[in-house]
């Protein structure tokens, strides 16, 4: 028996405003969401690829590390500006806060523009899910050869490569038409073997007389095979397809992860834009501190996600 009376009516709950608590809970769901994305990426990356058929390197898929690094820097800056916006509201400087939010919005847009440039590169090179050539054994190999032939014919007609590469293109096209080549040979002459060492750090190399190259199955050749200077090594801007083992899987993961991240960035930008509109109409002040804080929490989370995506996709 207990006496459960005379207790004062104490307020219940956490000393957190509802909005902030709900945002933290929402972030929990977001953490799980991105964990599932990143977790499955790790499995795809470490599961099926083997030493002889590795996961694509950034170079294989036209991904520039420095662009990712710049984007990281942009997001870090925007994280700082949003926290400074909140700080400005706390010290009572609403005007400064609006400026900071404006800068954040601008930085977010810069991030998206850079992202869009990267995407455009992927589209230009056909590095899209389900559209990358992986296997070169038949029938996929012959599809690949036909595809390269079409690309070469396009180059023949419209140009678009430098002179040195143009000659190589013409030779390759002639050889394909003559039916002299296997898909593997076509791939080798497009891709070349010179730059492979640079772009495959840490992989096992087989040293030959005049060059080194990594032993990939698509490019696996007898040890004394001569080095081939690929068309893409002569002109990196030539639009020619080559075989990328696990290129489709890479593209799938890349677009899924960065795509959902970009969507989240966009969502944040919408809120910042709303804040700016509010400020423009003169309805923005210290009373909006919680709105800024909650949005800031979200924005920092988006930043944290990128902090993990950058090394996972670009570096490691």
């Amino acid at each position, binding site marked *: 028996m207990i006496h459960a009376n005379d*207790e004062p*009516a104490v307020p219940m*709950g956490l000393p957190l405003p509802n909005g902030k608590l709900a945002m933290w809970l929402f972030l929990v769901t977001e953490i799980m969401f991105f964990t599932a994305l990143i977790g*499955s990426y790790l499995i*795809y990356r470490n599961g099926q690829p083997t030493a002889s058929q590795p996961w694509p390197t950034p170079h294989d898929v036209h991904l520039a590390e420095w662009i990712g690094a710049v984007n990281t820097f942009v997001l870090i800056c925007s994280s700082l500006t949003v926290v400074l916006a909140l700080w400005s509201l706390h010290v009572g400087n609403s005007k400064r806060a609006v400026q900071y939010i404006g800068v954040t919005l601008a930085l977010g847009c810069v991030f998206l523009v850079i992202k869009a440039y990267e995407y455009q590169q992927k589209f230009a090179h056909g590095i899209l899910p389900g559209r990358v050539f992986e296997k070169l054994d038949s029938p996929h190999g012959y599809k690949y050869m036909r595809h390269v032939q079409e690309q070469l014919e396009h180059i023949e007609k419209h140009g678009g490569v430098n002179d040195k590469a143009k000659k190589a293109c013409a030779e390759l096209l002639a050889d394909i038409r003559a039916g002299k080549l296997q898909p593997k040979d076509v791939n080798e002459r497009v891709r070349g073997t010179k730059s492979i060492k640079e772009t495959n750090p840490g992989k096992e190399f087989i040293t030959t007389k005049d060059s080194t190259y990594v032993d990939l199955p698509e490019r696996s050749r007898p040890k004394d095979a001569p080095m081939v200077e690929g068309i893409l090594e002569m002109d990196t801007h030539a639009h020619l397809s080559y075989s990328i083992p696990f290129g489709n899987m890479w593209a799938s993961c890349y677009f*899924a992860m960065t795509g959902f991240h970009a969507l989240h960035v966009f969502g944040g930008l919408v809120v910042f834009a709303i804040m700016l509109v509010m400020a423009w109409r003169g309805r923005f002040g210290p009373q909006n501190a919680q709105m800024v804080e909650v949005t800031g929490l979200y924005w920092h989370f988006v930043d944290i996600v990128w902090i993990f995506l950058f090394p996972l996709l670009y570096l490691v």
Partner: protein
Amino acid sequence: MSVGHPPTTAAPAHHEPSFLGKYIFSTDHKIIGMQFLFTSIIFLGLGGILALLVRIQLAWPHAEIPILREWFVDNGGRMTESFYNMLFSMHATVMIFFVIIPFLTGAFGNFTIPLMIGAPDMAFPKLNMMSYWFMWPAFVLILASFYAEGGAPAAGWTSYPTLSSITMPAGEGLHSPAAPNSGHGQIFWLLSLTCVGISSMMGSVNYITTIINMRAPGMTLYRMPMTIWAMFITAILQAFALPVLTVALIYQSLDKSIGTTFFLPDGLTFGNWSAGPGGGQTLLWQHLFWFYSHPAVYIMILPAMGMVSDIISTFARRPLFGYRAMIYSIAGIAGLGFIVWGHHMFQSGMDPRLGTGFMIATIMIALPSAVKVFNWLGTVYRGDIQFTTAMLFALSFVALFIIGGLSGIFMAATPVDIYIHDTYFIVGHIHYVLFTSSLMGIFGAIYYWFPKMFGRFMNEFWGKVHFALTFVFANGVFFPMHILGTAGMRRRIPDLTATAFESPLLTLNQVMTISAILLGLTQLIFLANFLLSLFLGKQTTERNPWHSNTLEWSAPTPPPHGNFDVPPVVYRGPYEYGAVPNRTEDYLPQTLKFDGPVPAASGH
């Protein structure tokens, strides 16, 4: 620092909203709860019809079914296998995502949470409204899938790739070389479930925030009724697990539509057609799917457990035995629930060493369930049981959850699972947990809260008839499933005469089907009782007809917008039933300030 303020006494005045604002685009948690309730009942009917068609096909595999005969003229008047596969796939999808979950978290979560914690509404009423309206795209899409080219999905509710997700190469349409139904219908299914997921996620964030931050003064965590505890933990489960399913659904949609290969490995060949390069992992779908869907099993049972605890305690006129143990066991079920998903995958080609770990965790999860059952029995002990319809349903929950819980141990044991995996044993198990437990709990809750919801009682006599027949026929359908499973009958087959070991089971299947039809007809009694009582039921004359302690009974009936005429202040736990000197009633409402000894506080 503190954001809490002493409550102001005056409830704010509200202007009376229009009909549209009051019943359709309502932000009132009670109305939203009822919206969920009505749609769930409609989908219950749909799911039930699908189930009956499944049962009929199983019992008379070679018969021409009177009405369907016209649809299957090409097939000699017999149901096609694809149609049959569609039936059970959609039955499971509808029952899980559009009946049980909306019933429990949507209808009763919405109705009970603010009322039972003494809040005027949810923390975010508009978000709450959105969470209902996000169900509508899901409703439309899932119904539209029946009319999609090839029909509704037929890859099971688990939708395992590659059966579900292989399509022609990107840009060549959505036709599936694996099954006619896995094309367009599957996309509808995936989008529909994504909408359900978004809706549930909004709901769960809202519920958690409300329960943490909106409790009435004095309503400490350990004074919350079990219903609220169960809803709270369920919402946490949803918040953690749903995003993972969302990712899986999105991945599968992308696989189907734009040519990604997340779940499609290399070298797939269908007839003469060979798919493009893959690189994906089929098993990953199962991992992601079950990472959600196992906790989802608890999402589908924990709220029912909570409501049943309240009902049993109320009608046994006894404090809930081991209140804290009940909370800890719910939390234990939820916590363990996240590390047992692999038991759905013992035979799936998952690393068998993982299987061992999952087995131990799975078997141990029976422990909190056992504790709960014992505590319910302890609650009934020395009670004064009032056999209302609600109480009968709650008691049947206990009686039949025991069967569902015990049969789970068979599947949890890896070697035994080798034999009974994908047999009717698992079908029996899930129906014992979801029909005879969750749905019985839901029925009990409807009978229990109906007076508070609508200000009228449901008819007790017909309620009891409904209960008795449901109890008998449900056991008649679902219990023999264990026998079928033990005899090796596979699930998801339309015709069991194809193998030597299954064909002797036909007679038992026919008995079950007759029982199932009767079970379906019995629900018409419920439907009639429910609808007629809405308008003709006996009116409630008092706020607290069951003499219950929890807060919702101190609100006016039906509760107005804003719920309470007097903001409640809580002085005690929710289960103080029993003899109290100097008091003529045998219950002490949570809002009652009362001097003197009170019944043993539950669970100390």
